[in-house]
């Protein structure tokens, strides 16, 4: 665009006239050498050349001037009497008139051509600027990135400061993005922008409305109404403004409006999806709460009332013991459920803080097995721990809970006498821990779903649980920067494997004690 303006500047400067003069002068000198061989008619034709040239190069006016100069030179230097004008020379007014005509016609033709070239260049620039913008905003889907891309693209092709104003929650216009400075946006300018926002019409500089404003404001309009304002403060030009830039800006504004609208709609779609998801979770939580809390409560209340009301000692000692065991199991189950809910809440609220210290996984697995107590004692457990397993920096309590949940899960989803295998080994810069059982497999499509909240497998075994255990495991493992996945064993059963990164390594060197025995 800048070079265009330079070309326009050329046509109004005096350079074409000087060059035309020079051409006429040179032509005169040239003809003076060869005039002896030429007739006057031919000489006059020679003077047509500079006229044509300047017409083609600079248009009508320089051509006409060249024609006049050519006629004068021809008359003065070649038409006898030489070096003077006489009345007889009036005959040559005919050639003068033809010169004028040729200059005029050629000039206007070339003017038109030039305008067309200019116009199509302009069009191409606009189209490519619009294309660049549309390509850039299609590539991003965050509102901020879209606005950034609009501001920088418009500023890049318009040579000015671009601001984008969008309504905030209270429906008041707010500056959301600016390319370069934006301190011109004072109260008055903001009032103009607000007017544009209300009316949906452009206003400000170079328009009929508020022409005195410093910047130009265009509405970002869509079918749903005005989404915001595109404001531009043109860098001060010395040359008159380009009339084409307003339509181009309007095209930019249209494109920007579409992009902003699209981003907004995409955001709303995401929100509604999240809403549906949280709705689903709430339902699952309610079901889980009502089932998993009520079932043990029912058994506890039933057993306790049976014992309290047993005035006549109907129950045998064995029966009493049975009832007491029922109460204990029910209470333990509720305790586990509450712990799981609390763990999940800690994970989800972001309150989980890792309390990292050096942990010995062999030690922790012993603790976990102890904690599981009776349910695991009757099970054959195969623990395979690689020799010289390094200590690891982790939150020992969370890792313990992780083992408890995984072992509990492995126990629940397998027959009462089948084997459980735990394998711990080092794999490069991480430890890999696998817990496998010999229970029924999981459909391949469900393998990743087992870590979802409240997802529970249908199992032939009567399994009680919260559907939170593995989701918590996933949360704990990821908090440590590890991965967790489930796979079916070739020989039946399911293996759940997780990794823990060995971030720091303990040298293994421990000084002997300081104090003597």
């Amino acid at each position, binding site marked *: 665009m800048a070079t265009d303006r330079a070309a326009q500047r050329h046509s109004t400067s005096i350079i074409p006239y000087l060059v035309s003069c020079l051409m006429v002068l040179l032509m005169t000198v040239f003809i003076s050498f060869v005039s002896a061989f030429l007739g006057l008619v031919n000489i006059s034709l020679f003077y047509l050349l500079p006229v044509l040239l300047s017409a083609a190069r600079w248009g009508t006016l320089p051509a006409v001037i060249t024609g006049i100069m050519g006629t004068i030179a021809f008359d003065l230097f070649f038409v006898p009497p030489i070096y003077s004008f006489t009345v007889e020379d009036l005959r040559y007014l005919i050639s003068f008139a033809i010169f004028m005509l040729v200059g005029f016609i050629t000039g206007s033709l070339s003017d038109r051509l030039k305008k067309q070239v200019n116009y199509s260049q302009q069009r191409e620039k606009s189209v490519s600027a619009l294309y660049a913008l549309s390509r850039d905003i299609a590539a991003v889907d965050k509102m901020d990135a879209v606005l950034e891309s609009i501001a920088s693209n418009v500023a890049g092709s318009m040579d000015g400061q671009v601001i984008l104003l969008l309504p905030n929650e209270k429906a008041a216009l707010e500056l959301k993005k600016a390319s370069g400075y934006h301190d011109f946006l004072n109260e008055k300018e903001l009032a103009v922008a607000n007017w544009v926002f209300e009316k949906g019409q452009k206003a400000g500089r170079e328009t009929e409305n508020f022409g005195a404003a410093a910047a130009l404001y265009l509405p970002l309009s869509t079918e749903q109404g005005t989404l915001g304002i595109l404001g531009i403060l043109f860098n001060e030009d010395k040359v008159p403004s380009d009339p084409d830039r307003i339509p181009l800006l309007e095209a930019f504004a249209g494109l920007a409006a579409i992009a902003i609208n699209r981003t907004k709609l995409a955001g709303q779609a995401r929100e509604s999806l999240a809403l549906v998801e949280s709705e689903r979770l709430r339902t699952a939580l309610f079901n889980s709460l009502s089932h998993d809390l009520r079932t043990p409560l029912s058994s506890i209340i039933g057993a306790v009332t049976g014992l309290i009301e047993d005035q006549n000692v109907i129950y045998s000692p064995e029966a009493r013991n049975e009832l007491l065991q029922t109460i204990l199991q029910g209470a333990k189950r509720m305790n586990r459920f509450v712990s799981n809910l609390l763990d999940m809440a800690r994970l989800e609220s972001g309150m989980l803080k890792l*309390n990292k210290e050096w942990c*010995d996984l062999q030690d*922790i697995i*012993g*603790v976990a097995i102890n904690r599981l107590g009776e349910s695991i004692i009757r099970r054959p457990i195969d623990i395979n721990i690689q020799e010289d397993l390094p200590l690891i920096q982790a939150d020992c309590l969370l890792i313990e809970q992780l083992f408890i949940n995984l072992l509990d899960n492995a126990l629940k989803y397998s027959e009462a006498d089948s084997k459980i295998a735990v394998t711990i080994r080092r794999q490069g810069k991480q430890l890999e821990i696998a817990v496998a059982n010999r229970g029924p497999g999981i459909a391949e499509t469900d393998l990743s779903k087992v870590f979802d909240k409240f997802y529970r497998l249908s199992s032939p075994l009567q399994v009680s649980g919260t559907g939170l255990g593995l989701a918590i495991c996933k949360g704990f493992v990821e908090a440590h920067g590890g991965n967790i996945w489930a796979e079916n064993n070739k020989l039946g059963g399911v293996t759940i494997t997780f990794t823990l990164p060995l971030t720091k390594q303990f040298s293994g060197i421990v000084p002997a004690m300081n*104090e003597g025995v």
Partner: protein
Amino acid sequence: MENNGPRILIIDDETQIRRFLRVALSSHGYLVKDVGTGKEGLDAAAMFSPDLVVLDLGLPDIDGIEVVRQLREWSKVPIIILSVKEQEQVKITALDCGADDYVTKPFGMGELLARIRAALRHVSGAEEQPVLQFGDLTIDFVHRRITRDGNEIKLTLTEYELVRNLAINAGKVLTHKSLLRAVWGPSYENEVQYLRVYIGQIRRKLEHDPSRPRHIITEPGVGYRLL
């Protein structure tokens, strides 16, 4: 019921817990007094002169840790903390401030009774004996000999010192800090990894199955105890 056994003071704001503790402990022969606030607890500790205090960390008026601190200003009475899982850090602070042991709610009665017995035994100096027996393990302090089923187990000096510290506090939890301080010295009290390495080594020598230890029990995040 006339109880002449050890006197236990219970400080807990939950009436349900106090009720069941009162019933269960007096049935086991202890003389029980229970109060609901820290202030009352501190007063009762002076008036009732208990042999042991069971203290809940979540009191309505005074911070549980503050109760431990104030008690420790003038008394060596054993304190057993009642805590919940979510108070891990507070529990460790209470132990480092001088509390003797802890149980996590919900707890079984057997667990609490074992803690109470261990704490009382420790005060009575029952451990100041030349030879202690822990199931198949025998620790002979005089000859610095440890045997399992009659077979001597060779321990390094540091290993022995660790076992000795655990043994003279048998049944009681020893925090990482207190063990490190006792064996390596005060400037090493945060080097938990030393303990991990040494306890691992000791277990490989003492335990039948180091993955499922029966003597040296880990209290995750807190410390170890010897049973």
